[in-house]
């Protein structure tokens, strides 16, 4: 395996840096159910890291641990070389971690634009009083962040639905708006929980392109959960494989593909 402290360059010329996030011996239980069992892995700066595994393997739970929504009973989370203390999700967001959800979690009563503008919250600083009188700073800030929101809207090609209430959009577009809301936060680490689930081939291709572009153009580190193996193999630099809460594989797509335990898990061979 590569030396983790130095950066490497991928075949397609992207630079992958040192370790950004490290999960150390994470165990997460819900009553009697062990969702994650003593798992360690890391995410390196600039890479696309996939987490795969059969249904109920604990993948979403792992993302929820990273975003501070679940608190593991055991183990440590290290971020940018420091151990992270137990945090509320909104505090995690302020550290530059954004995400999308397996079941779309948009603000249905708000327009696409308002949804995306909400994603800018961590960059906005005008005080309550500024906003109450809407003079000077609040107004300036709104325009400035609107510009950033429009950049992302252009990037994801959703100009035409800007003012549409999100509740009225079809599924595929909702997924895209959710990505926009996460991206506009300019995260250092972007977590995507099944960004292509339920999409048709064309929509999947679009989404794959966006994910690659985000990684390439903005240099965003991405951790994604995906069931479509073709997509995973195409997109990711490294893959973690989970099954029944345990890690059964970790490495490049090719390494993982040849791992016997992974093949067994996917072919449904009985566990012993």
């Amino acid at each position, binding site marked *: 395996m590569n030396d983790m402290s130095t950066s490497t360059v991928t075949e397609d010329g992207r630079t992958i840096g040192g370790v950004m996030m490290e999960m150390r011996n994470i165990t997460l239980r819900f009553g009697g159910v062990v969702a994650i069992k003593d798992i360690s892995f890391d995410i390196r700066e600039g890479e696309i890291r996939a987490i795969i595994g059969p249904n109920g393997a604990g993948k979403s739970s792992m993302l929820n641990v990273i975003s501070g929504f679940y608190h593991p009973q055991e183990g440590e989370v290290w971020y940018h070389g420091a151990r992270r203390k137990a945090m509320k*999700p909104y505090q995690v967001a302020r550290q530059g971690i*954004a995400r999308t959800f397996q079941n779309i979690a948009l*603000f*249905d009563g708000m327009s696409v634009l308002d949804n995306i503008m*909400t994603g800018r919250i961590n960059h906005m600083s005008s005080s309550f009083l500024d*906003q109450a009188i809407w003079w000077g700073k609040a107004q300036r800030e709104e325009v400035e962040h609107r510009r950033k929101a429009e950049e992302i809207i252009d990037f994801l090609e959703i100009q035409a639905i800007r003012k549409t209430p999100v509740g009225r959009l079809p599924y595929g577009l909702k997924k895209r708006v959710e990505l926009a*809301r996460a991206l506009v936060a300019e995260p250092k680490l972007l977590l995507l929980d099944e960004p292509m689930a339920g999409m048709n081939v064309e929509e999947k291709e679009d989404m794959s392109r966006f994910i690659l572009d985000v990684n390439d153009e903005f240099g965003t580190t991405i951790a994604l959960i995906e069931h479509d193996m073709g997509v995973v193999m195409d997109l990711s630099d490294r893959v973690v494989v989970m099954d029944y809460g345990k890690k059964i594989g970790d490495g490049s797509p090719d390494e993982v593909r040849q791992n016997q335990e992974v093949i067994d898990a996917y072919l449904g061979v009985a566990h012993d």
Partner: protein
Amino acid sequence: MFYREAGDFKTTYAADNQTFPIAFDRWRYWAVLFVAVFVIPLVINDYWANALLIPFLIYAIAAIGLNILTGYCGQVSLGTGGFMAVGAYATYKLMTAFVWMDMVTITLLSGLITAGVGVLFGLPSLRIKGFYLAVATLAAQFFLVWIFNRVPWFYNYSASGQINAPERMMFGVPVTGPNAEVWVKYLFALGFVIVLSWVARNLTRGSVGRQWMAIRDMDIAAEIIGVNPLKAKLTAFAISSFFVGVSGALLFSIFLGAVEVGEAFGISKSFLVLFMVIIGGLGSIFGSFAGAAFMVLLPVVLKIVGVDMFGWPTDIVQHLQFVIVGGLIVFFLIVEPHGLAQLWRLAKEKLRLWPFPH
């Protein structure tokens, strides 16, 4: 005919962000404001002021307040009457304790005190939602009315247990007490309405408003984006209670003049304001005005039509009012949760395209 977007292109984000992006709406807004400030005070009479205009203005403030909490932030409250009582009693205590203090300051301070009380009773919202929160605010309603009845300090140990607004002057004319003229009271209430609705509009169009709505629509996602739910909910309770408190203060000081708490600020007041918000439109400042106007107008219109024109018995007309309000609540909750405001928006959309609907 004039209601057109054509030739009214937005070239900056600030322009796209205005309260009234269509020029015609802007003119109408200024026209309404002009009439409200300069024309109505000259022509107002006691009947119209007391039956319609002053209660409309005062309830509009309460409706905006409740709409911020329920319509924008998604936190149900049945404690509006109780919080209005806090505003009223704060005003009474301030008026009698600080005789030199002017009514604007007193009213604003009453709003602030209510905001504090609102935050206190809003704390459970961090743990409970929906039905359970509604019950908790209902408890607040009964508790507040009970305490204003039970603790004589609040009504300065008066024998009747009532509170009465003494006369206070502003710019040499009385605003409260029996000698205050209606145009003065009207302008006093109007001033608060203009400033507070402007503040409400500002808060709901920016980052604070989006945080409230995010909590309303999907609190988990809001938190994961970076919204601090504690802060968002408690600011909504604070701002909402401030508005409701000011409304209660005005209802007491310039409208009722004398208050017996259970009668003026009972549970039926909570429902009255809630109905205004539902009928007018959840999550809309304009809807708060529409709802307040509707609920204030309805009994007056019914009395004129039913009792005066057709000679029906008063109690029948009153029941008719319950039936109408009940029916409308059901209609709006099921068919159009955005209330009159949305119907108005749809009508405008049609008008914008008229006479060529495609």
